């Protein structure tokens, strides 16, 4: 009896070990092969985006990143700006960096239209305030959102210092230009925001906005900040970049090169 029980535990342990090992191997291969800038150092990833605003502005009214994101995520087109759903959009630089770009800054710099999105903060206030765990920070730093858990209290919108979250005042499914069947739609009464294309990262692709930007001017660089050899790691370490509202201590992971 004892022997068979011991055998059973041993076999069960071996099976579990094997299964988890296989999972590590599978993930390891997937990570190494597909995900950008993976260092394989075992250090926890910190996905980030750097935006070269000068390059971006050189494209004039380009909205490739916005269009790609909207198409990828079934984002509705709502004309009323107060009810608009925005994952990534453009703002004037002086609005994005009101304290850094004063009236004496170069006009071309102040009036530059630059993309803004969820900053996937290291210390996200939205996660802290959500009463139902509908939003959380993943191990790789992505601030995720599960609309099925969202009760629509809008505390996260109030708590976000960057205005990066939108509330569905109306049924968004009626305002989607071209419905993608492989991405979920949302319902009336929930909050949504950029997820840094977590679903694309899972299959080794870059975020849709970055991919679209690469096809135009390449102003956006995406990668793992935890890896010093990654393109974004090198860029952030060698160039002066700015982040929004650093005084709040949220540690945004979207960097801007002005």
């Amino acid at each position, binding site marked *: 009896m004892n022997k068979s029980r011991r055998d059973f535990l041993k076999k069960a342990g071996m099976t579990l070990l094997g299964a988890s090992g296989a999972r590590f191997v599978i993930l390891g291969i997937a990570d190494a092969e597909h995900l950008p800038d993976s260092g394989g150092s075992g250090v926890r990833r910190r996905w980030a985006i750097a935006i070269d605003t000068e390059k971006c502005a050189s494209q004039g009214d380009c909205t490739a990143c916005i269009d790609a994101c909207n198409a990828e995520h079934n984002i509705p087109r709502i004309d*009323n*700006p*107060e*009810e*608009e759903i925005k994952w990534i959009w453009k*703002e*004037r630089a*002086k*609005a*994005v960096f*009101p304290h850094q770009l004063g009236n004496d800054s170069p006009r071309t710099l102040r009036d530059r239209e630059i993309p*803004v999105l969820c900053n996937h903060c290291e210390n996200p*206030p939205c996660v*802290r*305030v*959500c*009463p*139902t*765990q*509908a939003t959380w920070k993943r191990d790789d730093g992505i601030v995720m959102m599960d609309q099925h*858990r*969202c*009760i*629509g*209290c*809008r*505390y996260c*919108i*109030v*708590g*976000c*210092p*960057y*205005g990066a*979250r*939108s*509330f*569905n*005042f*109306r049924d968004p499914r009626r305002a989607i230009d071209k419905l993608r069947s492989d991405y979920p739609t949302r*319902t*009336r*009464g*929930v*909050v949504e925001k950029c997820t840094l294309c977590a679903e694309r990262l899972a299959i080794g692709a870059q975020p849709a906005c970055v991919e679209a930007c690469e096809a135009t001017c390449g102003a956006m660089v995406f990668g793992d900040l935890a890896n010093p050899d990654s393109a974004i790691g090198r860029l952030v370490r060698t160039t002066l970049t700015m982040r929004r509202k650093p005084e*709040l201590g949220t540690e945004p992971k979207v960097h801007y090169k002005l």
Partner: protein
Amino acid sequence: MSTARKGADRLFWFLALTGLIAGLVGLWTRLTVGHASANYGSYIPWGLWVSGYIYMIGLSAGAFVMSALVFVFRVKALERIGTLALLTALTTLIGALLMIWMDLGHMDRVWRMVLRTNFGSVMGWMAWLYGAYFVLLLVEFWQAMRLRLVLQADAPGLAGTLCRILTFGNRDASAASRRRDAARLRILGSIGIPLAIAFHGSVGAIFGVVGARPYWNSGLTPIIFLVGALLSGAALLAMVTAIWGPGKEDGDNTAIVVLIGRIILGLLAFDVILEWAEISIGLWSSLPAESASLKLILFGHYWWVYWGVHVGLGILLPALLLLFAGKRASAVGWAGGLIAATFMSVRLNIVIPGLAVPEMEGLRDAFQGPGLSFEYFPSSAEWLLFIFAVSTAALLFLLGKSLLPVVDHDANPDLEPQLQGGPGHVQ
């Protein structure tokens, strides 16, 4: 009941019923088109409904603490209004919870607040605190009425039947049972005080912890919420007591109302000091992030809400009434009514200006044109739903005071021992 009190009673029945009927339109709109009928948007995501919720929850907390003066601290002069204070606290709590429930984008998912709580969130705690407070209020309300329920169980009519049912078969009116009642009430009230402070302090903390909103982000915010709750709740109770309190004629309850008037005056002074501290420090520092909201309150488009409604009708006029006619029950009742009603402007001036200064400077000219600040005025659907919640609370109160033995108009000496469960009476 005197003619004046009867008139006030009829007026409130009329207002509550009319409000409920009109409010049904707001309820229908809310249930059919959701938040699309509201005038707030992604930049000002909270509006009249959230303000209405913190307004009514404050009234509830304040009225409850007044009841604790009776059941915990045994202030004898107020003992005949202890149950009335509990009914006020219970009905305003129901109104508040109704209001905030309607404000949720997904009302059907409210259970997640309890079963999937994020205890790191101040709001996450609220569902638990409200649940505990609601149960405690119900039990304490019943316990406070128990003896009267027993004594009136044989009365004819609907009220008698209701009393009979609510005794739950326990007809014990002995001296021992009354001492037991008093002891239980003291325990329940003692649990209730920290609970009321915790949940209303937490309502303040919901705003106070938001670093993104400098106007709210202060350690003073929960304190201001608490003092405001005490003031508005006590003020409401002054009006309630003046109209429906013990005594059949005007003046029968003057002593009680006058005492509440003195409490209100003290709380009003304290509230003004806190307000002064908040405004003067915020403006003095000249930090645009905070002073922008304050300037919006004082000199913005809706300056009259602060100066006219709050300062004029909610501070100066009641203060004059309390100072110069504070010995007349009707004057104190009016002062209480004015403070309680206009306190909604204080709650609106907390929620809206805190949100009306955008996270990004440029947002304000994104859709309103340069030079204009964020502006919000509730839509008719928002007002109607707010009226629905307030009217529901008012109607529940009116039904409660009519059908349940909440007030002992005849100062029945049989009831006196209920509060004399031990030493510690404060005259």
